[in-house]
């Protein structure tokens, strides 16, 4: 290559690089517009950004079956972690260039988005959805403490115990598997260990597990009747003592378990607690081996956590009509039934569950219904109003767990120190108490 050619070639290369750095032209949709779209012009795909249904299998089911019947627009379902999810929505609002249409998230995420002024008022949309028997409490939650509707309830879930039938023979004397107490669960674990030589209780405690929900919505309220206000009370000390005793019979590998279904299916765990969506594969793959039962009860009752996910619309979204149509679609009774069947999140409608459910869902639904209808059942909510501090709130419980249960530190000392951390989080977020703590004005106080 002579010198001049070399020069020309290198400048051509630089030009190419510069061109590549320039903003790309807006992609033109290649697909033909769907036929049945009278109201909405499908210019760009409608983005449904969600923190839910993030595991690959669930996301695929969302795309291929749940959304299959929606023809008004082409939906692009994007599931992401809480952090990038919030960052994207808020950054788009700040930049004034909104691409997100519908927002799917847990109840606790919406207040952050409202604070960033990123949510459309859905009160008019709700008027159109009057025929849906959506659970009243969930609708109230969707107002986020205002008089406007900011999200429409989408689906709900809870946490239960999955039990391998082999474990039933070791139940403590007089214990009813559908009405266990935490002490009985410990005794059960001890019996199983005596008989098999193995620790076969399961509490998910891996880095991506939902262990903090077990502490927040089950253990703490069941023993202390609260969470934040009672964080370091003597009842809390008793709770941690009992949890320590229970942990003696928990499979020590649980610190790497994120989804209890895997440990249940491999046989490493016989009695495991987890989110219904993280247990469902056990029921699907071996429906003859497993049953679902309510979570145990403590001295203050059988507290369980009700997890509500909602659908909101990003403010100034380019395709608001499409977004509204999608919410209308996803809350139809038939689509709610499909959602239950495919990803085992339960409907938010007051009507009875469909009868033609697959065996696995029926098994799980049985446990869920028994839990919510138990005589001593009480509801705890996901944290509310913590905004961006939600992560650090969970961290307090997880650190408390690590220090007391895994490292064996002194309970009272840890509770005093972590209680102070908890108060710092509550003060920073200025979050009032939520159920089961008594309602407060101003930041919730650790007593």
């Amino acid at each position: 290559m002579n010198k001049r050619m070399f020069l020309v070639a290198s400048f051509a290369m630089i030009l190419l690089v510069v061109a590549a750095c320039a903003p790309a032209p807006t992609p033109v949709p290649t697909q033909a517009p769907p036929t049945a779209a009278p109201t909405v012009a499908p210019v760009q795909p409608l983005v449904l950004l969600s923190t839910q249904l993030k595991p690959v299998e669930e996301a695929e089911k969302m795309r291929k079956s749940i959304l299959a019947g929606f023809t008004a627009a082409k939906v692009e379902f994007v599931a992401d972690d809480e952090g990038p999810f919030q960052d994207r929505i808020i950054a788009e609002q700040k930049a004034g260039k909104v691409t997100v249409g519908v927002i799917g998230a847990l109840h606790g995420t919406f207040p952050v988005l409202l604070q960033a002024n990123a949510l459309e008022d859905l009160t008019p949309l709700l008027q159109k959805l009057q025929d849906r028997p959506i659970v009243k409490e969930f609708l109230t939650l969707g107002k986020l403490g205002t008089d406007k509707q900011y999200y429409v309830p989408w689906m709900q879930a809870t946490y239960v115990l999955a039990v391998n039938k082999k474990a039933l023979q070791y139940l403590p004397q007089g214990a009813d598997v559908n009405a266990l107490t935490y002490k009985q669960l410990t005794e059960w674990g001890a019996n199983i260990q005596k008989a098999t030589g193995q620790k076969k209780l399961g509490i998910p405690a891996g880095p991506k597990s939902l262990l903090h929900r077990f502490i927040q919505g089950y253990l703490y309220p069941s023993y202390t009747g609260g969470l934040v206000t009672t964080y370091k009370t003597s009842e809390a000390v008793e709770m941690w003592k009992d949890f320590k005793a229970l942990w003696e019979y928990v499979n020590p590998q649980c610190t790497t378990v994120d989804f209890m279904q895997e440990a249940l299916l491999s046989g490493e765990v016989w009695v495991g607690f987890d989110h219904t969506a993280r247990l469902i594969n056990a029921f699907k793959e071996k429906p003859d081996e497993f049953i679902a039962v309510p979570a145990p009860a403590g001295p203050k009752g059988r507290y369980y956590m009700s997890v509500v996910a909602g659908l909101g619309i990003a403010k100034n979204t380019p395709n608001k009509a499409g977004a509204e149509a999608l919410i209308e679609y996803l809350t139809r009774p038939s689509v709610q039934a499909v959602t239950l069947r495919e990803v085992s999140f339960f409907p938010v409608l007051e009507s009875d569950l469909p009868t033609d459910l697959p065996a696995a869902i029926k098994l799980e639904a049985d446990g869920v219904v028994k839990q919510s209808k138990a005589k001593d059942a009480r509801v705890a909510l996901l944290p509310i109003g913590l905004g961006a501090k939600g992560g650090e709130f969970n961290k307090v419980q997880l650190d408390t767990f690590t220090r007391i249960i895994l490292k064996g530190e002194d309970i009272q000392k840890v509770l005093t120190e972590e209680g102070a951390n908890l108060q710092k989080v509550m003060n920073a977020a200025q979050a009032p108490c939520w159920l089961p703590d008594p309602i407060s004005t101003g930041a919730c106080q650790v007593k």
Partner: protein
Amino acid sequence: MRFKLESALPFGLLFPSVAFLALLILAPIGQAFLLAFQTETGEFALAAFQRMASDTAFNEAVRNTFLLLLTIVPLQIVLALAMALLIHARLRGQTLFLYVFAIPMAISDLAAGLVWLSIFTERGYLNSILQSLGWIQQPLLLLSYQNPQGIFAAVVVAESWRATAIVMVILVAGLQMIPRDFFEAAELFGAGTLKRTWYVVLPLLRPSLQTALIIRTLFAFQTFAVVFALAGRTLPVLAGEAYTWYYSNRNPAVAAAMAFLILLLSLLATVVYLRVLQVREEERAR
């Protein structure tokens, strides 16, 4: 015209890499710096660093990161050197060795962690094999939180398996640059394999060893996917904590502070290696 074009050429050729570095490396470093040192109100303070250092897992994370570094890096250098020498010995089928040794490089670190998890877990391959051989009655709980040494050992094995290949490739390249005459001369003077390795190979391999050590140490500061898969929350490491602070705890400031600490440690390690393993001018010229 022609003169101008020619004097502009070096700048033109440098432009793409400078633009790349500025946009994708320098700008994010600047942003991370601001995130770590600025409070929410925009003042400069060390609040994020204080929060980071006062965290319960912080001291442990520092300790574990250094323990892993001090165990894995020397182990990998020795292993990689042995592998490189084996390939360099030009035995039959040496390319096969090279390909087999290089396989782990093609696997993402989280996938590697999951592969080793399926080996070491209670109902994993290792326990199944040991049980079917009748060597053990009950599966061994290798990854229990009560057995931190076991978890540590599993992480060392998995990390060594995963990242030794990159060190080996650098050393093989270095070995191939040593002129054959040197070996022949050494042989002529009666040096055996050991002496040849000690007096000829190792000194001439120093530039490559330096590169390998620097790269490996930087990677060691960033290890966490394998640790996450095998140890969960029982073995905190710096990079893992940075990830947790951003994704789970939702505190980008502390995450940035953590990243800044990792950057500082990496810089420090690089300077130390450059000083200690100083490469002489004539070696560099080769």
